């Protein structure tokens, strides 16, 4: 970034994660995305007079599990509070949240850069709260600002949320991106949320400021909302850092405000909010008894925690000798990590497995728009079988690419594909010699040049032999034979 020379960027993130319990946090309506508007509603989540909230115990379980996975201390005493504000997506005119006694505090996660370097980001707190309803803005022009009316859908109202607040520890938009993807990865590993940003089950607000290098005091912070994808978070922050830098350099003061990211325009714009709208007048929720968390309950949940992504990545590096970057990619998603580890063990070739997944597999998945490795037609057994065929010389690496393509398109056992398509490598010296002689005869000029010292011309001849044999000749044997024939 252009501002690097003069200013240091400071970013803190507030991440809202929808917990994947079966029911809402304070009533027994179904917690499910995508139903027809206002299908999962009841007097409680509509805020009708006389209804009372009853806390879903599974939300507490998920929140403690998430807190532990983020390295937090779990509170022994916790309670809910009312956060008061008027907005049509909040039918009670207050949100039940947690103010001064959140369920988890003082955590940390490590983010890993592409080069394997790590950085620790502090987690200030994690608290439980209810989600608001969803607003659909009716606008003729497609611009939110031009909306005259809105439709409210309360299916999401009362869905349990964990709000995770980071310390202002991030210094670049890239770090913010890595922090977010790490949070997602951890939440998915521990199975408390599916963290789908496009469906809104993970949402993120960012606080951004800049300050001259060496200055301790933070600059005026701006809050950015409405970033609806991981890439957009990075883009919005890059834009905002740039905007604040330009303003500061031209002597303008940064205004503390909330800005919305506009994906289409690639800009943030000011969301003018009415004065006093942030005076939430929190007070203890009188309808919900406080929580006292026993150590034994915390310990029970701690035992449920699986090996987390970073620990798994580090184990993969140590155990399978793969690069840290590859290990990071392979462990970002639990299904991929399990898939890889199975193939690595079956084939006994962990590095080869990693190379095939990182290379051909991911390229093909991208092409086909497949996100989860388990949704492809290839199984760990298939990949392992193919790698074994390369290892024992049955097929060359080049033919393997063909086999892989077939497996990706239609699935199936590598050995059977090789047999059915006649792809077995030619290792018969006689057959190879015949092809080599034919190529030498047809390329007299190239042969002369090689003899004259243009040694790298040999690659061209190898290619010709491979072409003649349909790629099936053992390339090493071809190479050796060619050299012998030409020099001899």
């Amino acid at each position, binding site marked *: 970034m252009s501002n690097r020379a003069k200013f240091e960027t400071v970013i803190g993130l507030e991440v809202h994660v929808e917990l994947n319990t079966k029911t809402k946090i304070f009533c027994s309506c179904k917690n499910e995305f995508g139903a027809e508007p206002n299908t999962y509603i009841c007097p409680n989540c509509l805020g009708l007079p006389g209804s009372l909230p009853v806390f879903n115990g599974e939300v507490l379980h998920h929140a403690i599990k998430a807190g532990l996975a983020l390295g937090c201390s779990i509170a022994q005493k916790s309670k809910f509070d009312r956060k008061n504000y008027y907005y049509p997506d909040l039918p009670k005119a207050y949100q039940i949240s947690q103010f001064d006694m959140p369920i988890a505090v003082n955590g940390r996660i490590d983010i890993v850069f592409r080069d394997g370097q790590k950085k620790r980001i502090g987690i200030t707190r994690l608290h439980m709260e209810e989600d608001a309803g969803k*607003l659909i803005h009716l606008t003729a022009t497609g611009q939110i600002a031009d909306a005259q009316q809105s439709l409210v859908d309360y299916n999401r109202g009362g869905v349990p949320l964990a709000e995770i607040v980071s310390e202002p520890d991030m210094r670049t938009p890239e770090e913010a991106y890595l922090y977010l993807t790490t949070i997602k990865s951890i939440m998915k590993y521990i199975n408390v949320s599916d963290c789908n940003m496009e469906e809104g089950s993970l949402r993120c607000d960012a606080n951004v400021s800049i300050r001259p290098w060496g200055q301790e005091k933070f600059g005026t912070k701006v809050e950015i909302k409405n970033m609806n994808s991981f890439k957009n978070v990075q883009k919005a922050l890059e834009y905002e850092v740039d905007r604040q830098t330009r303003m500061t350099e031209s002597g303008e003061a940064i205004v503390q405000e909330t800005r919305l990211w506009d994906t289409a325009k690639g800009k943030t714009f000011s969301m003018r909010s009415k004065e006093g709208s942030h005076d939430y007048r929190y007070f203890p929720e*009188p309808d919900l*008894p406080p*929580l006292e968390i026993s150590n034994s309950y915390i310990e029970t949940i701690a035992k449920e925690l699986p090996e987390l992504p970073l620990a798994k990545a580090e184990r993969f590096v140590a155990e399978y000798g793969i690069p840290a970057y590859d290990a990071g990619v392979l462990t970002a998603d639990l299904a991929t990590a399990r898939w890889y580890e199975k193939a690595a063990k079956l084939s006994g070739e962990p590095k080869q497995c990693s190379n095939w997944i990182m290379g051909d597999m991911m390229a093909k998945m991208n092409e086909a728009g497949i996100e989860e490795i388990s949704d492809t037609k290839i199984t760990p057994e298939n990949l392992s079988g193919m790698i074994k065929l390369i290892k024992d010389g049955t097929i060359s690496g080049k033919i393997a690419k063909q086999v892989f393509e077939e497996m990706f398109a239609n699935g199936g056992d590598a050995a059977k594909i090789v047999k059915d398509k006649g792809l077995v490598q030619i290792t018969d010296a006689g057959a190879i010699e015949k092809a080599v002689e034919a190529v030498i005869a047809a390329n007299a000029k190239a042969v002369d040049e090689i003899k004259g010292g243009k040694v790298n011309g040999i690659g061209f001849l190898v290619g010709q032999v491979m072409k003649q044999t349909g790629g099936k000749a053992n390339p090493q044997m071809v190479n050796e034979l060619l050299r012998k024939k030409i020099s001899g």
Partner: protein
Amino acid sequence: MVITRKDVEYIAHLSRLEITEQEAEQYTKELSDILEHINRLSKLNTDNVEPTYFTMDMKNVTRSDVVKPSIDKQKVFVAAPSIENNGFKVPKII
């Protein structure tokens, strides 16, 4: 007076309440009296008293995560001023 008329008007605005001149006058006095009483309580020594967050002797009240039927949206829609595409239609709010 511990609170001013301006405070009362501000709070009324936050709560979206329309109040008359006379009410503003009356609430300023009433709320001041309440706060003055709270101030008196604050003078008590509470060093050895645990803070109260809840007035009944209850804790850890939870329910099982089991879905129960929601209500028929049509029953709610009849009470709503305006409905469109199964949504509650409200005025522009941005």
